[in-house]
């Protein structure tokens, strides 16, 4: 039965699907470290996926597509800021609202523009080029290297490399940069930050914007790279998975990335487990195998990584009067 598992395929698949969660989860880290609960990831992903696909289709230029996604996502984020920071509104409600609204709006718009039942036309050639290691003729005939450089490390689009490059950078950014320090302070105790002369609102807006940009990448990756078109509700719960990975990772970049990769890995593993005859149990029905990543998460959460404590001011609007 072991030969049924193609480890290489699992690893490659993990890498390939990681960015969707990584970008979104990091977006969550920014928003929530600044003290704003971000349930709206799903909606932002969907909106930016649509914008990215539509713009890419119109201009036949994926980079412009990403820019469009960024723009849309940032607009949503500004609204989020207005609601959560200026209006002191309920941040959970905002998240739910945006998710529902975007699920509807993107369909209506897609239908309005393309009449393809909430789908955008196929983006065809207007996709990101995959990046490959140089001197292919040299290493490609050594199997190990060929896999490593050709499939595992190489042969991905720019967004993938960006996603992984972000992991160490964000750790540094959040723990060893001025902005990171202020971000954490604002999320832990905005009153203290304010007393230290920090502009809480401004810091939170900035954090949200960073999140907005990151989240748009996730949407763009979904539409432009992974699918090649936009489809209604194509975020398919990934926003919530990202959120989970973030809580799972205690709102800290490294652990969060770990969570995302874990999801990716078990999703890939689960793909391979379908139809495999196991000793004792025999073939496990596809529907049951589907729960693998989630069961694992619960177990890990209950066992190893119990006690996740978020930023103290998470979700409480910063109001000065007592």
């Amino acid at each position: 039965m072991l030969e049924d598992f193609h480890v290489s395929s699992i690893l490659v698949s993990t890498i390939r699907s990681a960015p969707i969660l990584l970008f979104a989860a990091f977006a969550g880290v920014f928003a929530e470290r600044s003290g704003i609960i971000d349930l709206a990831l799903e909606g932002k992903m969907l909106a930016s996926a649509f914008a990215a696909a539509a713009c890419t289709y119109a201009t036949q230029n994926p980079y412009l597509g990403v820019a469009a996604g960024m723009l849309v996502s940032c607009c949503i984020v500004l609204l989020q800021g207005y609601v959560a920071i200026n209006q002191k509104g309920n941040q959970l409600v905002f998240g739910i609202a945006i998710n529902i609204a975007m699920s509807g709006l993107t369909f209506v718009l897609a239908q309005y523009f393309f009449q393809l039942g909430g789908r955008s036309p196929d983006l065809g050639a207007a996709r990101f080029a995959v990046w490959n290691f140089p001197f292919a003729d040299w290493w490609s005939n050594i199997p190990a290297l060929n896999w490593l450089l050709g499939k595992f490390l190489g042969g991905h689009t720019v967004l993938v490399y960006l996603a992984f490059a972000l992991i160490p950078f964000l750790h540094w950014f959040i723990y060893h940069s001025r902005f990171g320090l202020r971000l954490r302070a604002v999320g832990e105790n905005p009153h203290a930050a304010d007393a230290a002369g920090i502009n809480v609102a401004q810091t939170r807006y900035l954090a949200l914007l960073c999140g907005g940009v990151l989240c748009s990448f996730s949407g763009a990756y979904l539409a432009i790279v992974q699918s090649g078109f936009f489809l209604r509700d194509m975020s398919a719960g990934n926003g919530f998975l990202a959120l989970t990975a973030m809580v799972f990772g205690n709102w800290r970049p490294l652990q969060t990335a770990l969570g995302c990769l874990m999801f990716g890995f078990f999703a890939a593993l689960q793909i391979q487990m379908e139809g495999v005859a196991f000793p004792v149990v025999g073939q496990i029905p596809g529907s049951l195998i589907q729960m693998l990543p989630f069961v694992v998460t619960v177990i890990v959460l209950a066992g190893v990584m119990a006690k996740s404590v978020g930023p103290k001011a998470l979700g409480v609007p910063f109001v000065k009067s007592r």
Partner: protein
Amino acid sequence: DQPKFALVYDAGGKFDRSFNQSAYEGAERFKKDTKISYIDAQVMSNAQGEQVLRSLARKGVDLIAAIGFTHAQQVQTVAKEFPKTKFVLVDGTAAGANVSSILFKEQEGSYLVGVAAALASKSKKLGFIGGIDIPLIRAFVCGYTQGAKSVDAKIDVSQNIVGTTATAWNDPAKGGELARAQMERGVDVIFAAAGGSGMGALQATKEKGKMAIGVDSNQNYLFPGVMLTSMVKRVDNAIYDSFMQVKNGTWKAGISNLGLKEGGVDWALDKDNRSLITPEIEKRVNAAKQDILNGKVKVIDYREASRCPL
């Protein structure tokens, strides 16, 4: 005066590039040929379906066509309340003297594309991707596998399903990922019966320069040179015919089971996949078709006994 017609889609919606759309096209064709228009509606939930059917019946519509097995129960209920109204249920069975249930022998079409796939595959590894693990999908797999094995008993068919929730039909990223994983395991022909997620799979096969098989409506045109063929399910004909029968007063209630013989299912061969279908393949597939038509080959229907003995 002209009879009134109505078409009720399920949650997939009018433009799902699948059987809802196929039904829509049938109705449109009828409209074009007869200049008789029709009402259409999409229902999101079960209770809503009942309500929509009822209000259509009240509007005095003569024939209400409900697309998708989710409507089965509702049609049965409402049909009882409105014995004068005629009902057509596609993909499901509902009792009633004024109901005609139209089922399709998807397994037969799947058998044919299975044969084609087996012949076209160089690696002798085929793939199947389904939306959710439901009897309909299992019937697809079963016929597909049987067809493939009829060509080469050792051929291996790896199958995946996208998910377990409604989003499973709208998750192209996952669909694509499944396809890639299968191709990395050597699969070179993939039959995708997963709605929008399937589109992702087709896209992925295109990227990797492998072949894919479309479903329900003829999807060959989506990726010419990639689409080996499509397992077409002529819901459009079914709708067109029922409308016509009502118009000509020849409509009859009862259960009809449309297979190859009745032209309910078939494989698609057109300019878009001509290049991929060698004369050899065409010959063999049509032969298989003949065998089924003259009963030499009995294609297994998973749904009969909820099992696929292979």
